């Protein structure tokens, strides 16, 4: 049944994609959106049963290629991915109905719908593919569709970003291809089923893991390979960048889990530690660079790098758990990673949709030109605030729950781990803590400078609330943010089930009634519903106090902002750069890393500039050294022979007779 529904969902996406090309722009955009929403529902319907009972469903068809069968497998992990993709795609489609029409009218809305739906369908297929060839095909199809979304603006900056993005994505998929082919050389078959049980020799296993880590890391936006992310995501239309940031980077993390854990069994300890290290570095540097941004969408893009770092930390701890035989630690690690994967997909896409709504009204991505939108666009502001609270992992929302589990997994690893782990885990926890604080500061800046304070530009003053479908899209995600947060006791066991299926079926209790705990309640308990109720209840105390004295107080009035007696003007307002200036001063070594890397790249670039010149010289070298001498030699020989052909046919008759005589002589001899 689930695979039937899944096929229906993919069918809906692809049919609506193609249909949106055929019809006029306005209806095309609408068809694509409706197709996407229905497809999403079908996708969630397919994923739900598998998530609930954890029974993997698989089917193998004989595809056109004899060496690779078309195999699909909807297991726990894939179901979680499909559900997340479906949720975010539904919200993006809802948002896109009017957003595409307002922002990109006349510039191929139908084509955008086509690529959006194709992109989502490809992602779902990647999650479910169970054969190396088809995995790579859909992996690249995903990059291809998103390339056209990133370059949709067709200006120089978008094209440059698109180029960088697709090249790194293609290089990444080539690394993954090498990894699969190494496994293919060992097992002789391209099916993942064969890969899972493969007895891979230790050395090739490490090579395959490293290839997969960097191949999928490039797609996920891990620090050394993240350069494309802050340029590509802002360039795409907002509901597309919501999908890009929210879900596509997760395919990278999903890939690392598939290869590292399912195929290679995460046997080696240093694998887990390496992933943990990359995760921690990505978290810290990601948020540090995010703080420095003026462009709202670039800021959010850098935060994707940070949150991917957090997910990788969870995966790293999970792999450490498996390698050191602590299955409960492994389950908690993967639970943290997968839960954060879902949460990040939800709140990051909410933030991008919010940013998109603001940018349609302001017309530019620069935060300096915004401000005063809290009153002008209240609903968007509230949604963006919920997203900001969630991403800063503030209780009781979903970001806090998954980060709490990450902390707990780091704690358990530090408690029982080997020497190296007991050092690495606390350091990672500290880096996660710093990142948390910087993230809070960054989103205070983002929300404050964008929405709060005075309107700092004409469009900001004239801004009005966005249309209802966009609000519906954001509302859906905001609601799921809250539900995933407060509903942790319901959600945690589901994700825990998927995590334990990764670790080999050992069930670890993660939730009981309203409480949620990392395997053993003694280590630590959390109850987000309780916190939510208490927060609302305790808010009553200050309300009660002010109400007591309300009678004697004159009505509230408003006046100009106090500026030491001067008339307040817009320049006085804190700017995006000014707000983050202390961090740039105090954390200078952190920013040194990027400038050194930029200098290295510049040096490489101008070395590359010499290549075309050299190649052009090499090209005509062939003609000069090889062909010209042959040509001249043949020409000279020709001149000598020319004498024979003097033009006097009398001489020719002599030649004939001479030849006759010679032949007669030869014959007779």
């Amino acid at each position: 049944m689930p695979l039937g529904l899944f096929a229906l969902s993919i069918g809906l996406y692809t049919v609506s994609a193609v249909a949106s090309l055929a019809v006029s722009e306005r209806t095309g955009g609408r068809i694509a959106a409706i197709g996407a929403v229905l497809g999403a529902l079908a996708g969630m319907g397919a994923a739900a049963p598998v998530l609930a009972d954890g029974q993997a469903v698989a089917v193998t068809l004989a595809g056109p290629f004899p060496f690779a069968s078309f195999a699909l497998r909807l297991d726990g992990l894939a179901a979680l991915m499909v559900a997340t993709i479906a949720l975010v795609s539904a919200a993006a489609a809802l948002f896109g109905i009017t957003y595409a029409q307002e922002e990109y009218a006349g510039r191929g809305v139908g084509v955008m719908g086509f690529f959006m739906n194709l992109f989502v369908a490809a992602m779902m297929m990647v999650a479910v593919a169970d054969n190396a060839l088809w995995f790579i095909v859909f992996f690249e199809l995903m990059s291809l569709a998103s390339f056209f979304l990133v370059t949709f603006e067709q200006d120089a900056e978008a094209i440059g970003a698109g180029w960088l993005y697709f090249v790194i994505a293609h290089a990444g998929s080539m690394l993954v291809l090498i990894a699969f082919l190494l496994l293919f050389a060992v097992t002789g078959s391209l099916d993942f089923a064969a890969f899972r049980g493969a007895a891979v020799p230790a050395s090739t296993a490490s090579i395959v893991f490293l290839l997969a880590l960097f191949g999928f890391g490039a797609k996920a936006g891990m620090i050394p390979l993240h350069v494309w992310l802050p340029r590509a995501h802002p360039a795409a239309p907002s509901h597309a960048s919501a999908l890009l940031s929210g879900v596509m980077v997760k395919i990278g993390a999903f890939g690392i889990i598939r290869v590292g854990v399912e195929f290679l069994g995460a046997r080696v300890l240093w694998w887990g530690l390496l992933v943990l290290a990359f995760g921690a570095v990505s978290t810290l540097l990601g948020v540090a660079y995010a703080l420095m941004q003026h462009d709202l969408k670039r800021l959010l893009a850098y935060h994707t790098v940070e949150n991917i770092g957090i997910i990788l930390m969870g995966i790293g701890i999970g792999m450490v758990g498996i390698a050191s035989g602590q299955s409960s630690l492994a389950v908690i690690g993967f639970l943290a990673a997968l839960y954060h994967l879902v949460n990040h997909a939800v709140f990051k896409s909410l933030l991008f949709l919010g940013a998109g709504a603001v940018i349609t009204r302001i017309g530019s991505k620069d935060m300096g030109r915004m401000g005063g939108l809290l009153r002008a666009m209240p609903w968007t502001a509230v949604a963006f605030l919920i997203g900001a609270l969630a991403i800063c992992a503030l209780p009781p929302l979903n970001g806090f729950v998954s980060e709490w589990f990450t902390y707990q997994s780091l704690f358990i690893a530090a408690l029982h781990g080997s020497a190296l782990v007991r050092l690495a885990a606390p350091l990672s926890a500290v880096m996660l803590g710093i990142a948390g604080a910087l993230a809070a500061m960054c989103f205070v800046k983002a929300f404050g400078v964008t929405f709060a304070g005075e309107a700092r530009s004409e469009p900001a003053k004239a801004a009005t609330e966005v249309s209802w479908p966009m609000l519906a899209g954001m509302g859906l995600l905001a609601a799921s943010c809250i539900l995933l947060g407060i509903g942790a006791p319901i959600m945690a066991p589901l994700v825990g089930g998927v995590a334990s299926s990764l670790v080999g079926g050992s069930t670890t209790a993660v939730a009981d009634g309203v409480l949620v705990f990392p395997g053993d309640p003694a280590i630590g308990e959390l109850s987000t519903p309780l916190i939510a109720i208490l927060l609302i209840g305790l808010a009553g105390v200050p309300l009660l106090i002010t109400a007591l004295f309300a009678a004697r107080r004159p009505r509230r009035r408003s006046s100009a902002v106090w500026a030491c007696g001067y008339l307040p003007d817009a320049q006085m307002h804190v700017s995006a750069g000014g707000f983050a200036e202390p961090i740039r001063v105090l954390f200078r070594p952190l920013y040194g890393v990027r400038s050194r890397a930029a200098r290295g790249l510049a040096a490489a670039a101008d070395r590359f500039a010499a290549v075309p010149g050299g190649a052009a010289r090499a090209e005509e070298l062939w003609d000069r050294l090889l062909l010209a001498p042959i040509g001249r030699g043949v020409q000279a020989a020709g001149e000598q022979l020319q004498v024979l052909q003097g033009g006097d046919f009398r001489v020719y008759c002599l030649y004939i007779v001479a030849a006759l005589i010679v032949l007669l002589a030869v014959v007779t001899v």
Partner: protein
Amino acid sequence: MTGLQLVNGLASLLIVTSLLVIEARGAAQSALYYALQSLVLVLVFLALAATVDAPRLFAWAAIAFVTKVVLVPAIMYRTLGRMSDPTLAPRRFGLAWTIIFAAAVVAVCFAVVSAIHLPGAATLKPALAISLAHFFLGLTCIVIQRNLLKQVFGFCLMENGSHLTLALMANQAPELVEIGLVTDAIFAVVVMVIIATMIRAKLQTLDVGQLTSLRG
């Protein structure tokens, strides 16, 4: 004087006539001398027919007479007679040299023919040598003459030489061979005449040396 001596005598007469053809001043004279030579050739055929009692040679003689003595010289006379090229440079080789050269050729041919063991025509060896010499004389005519028309006559001499050789060695051959040989000769002459006239018309010269632009 037996038939054989007659044949050898007529053959030697052939050499003389070919020399005449080579040295003749104008094209018309050459045509006449060619007709004469063909007549001599016919006589050789008749003599041969009588001595070797080869009845087919009579037919050969008749055909040869019709074509070579009457038809070909007529064509050449009528078409080539009119053409003359005042600018033609005088011959490089004097008459004397030509004769000496011809004698040398005949001597060589005798040496060659005598070395060869020929069962059929043992007695006719001198005629055979003459025919071979005749063939080479035609070649010398082509080579030493600058006049385009002389090339045509050179070819005809060579053709007569080979015709004579054929007659001597394969006198039992059916008339068909003769007809083939003769038509070949006629057509060759016709073609060469046409080419000569076209060259004359286009390049206004008959000097072979001017025709180097034809080279590849």
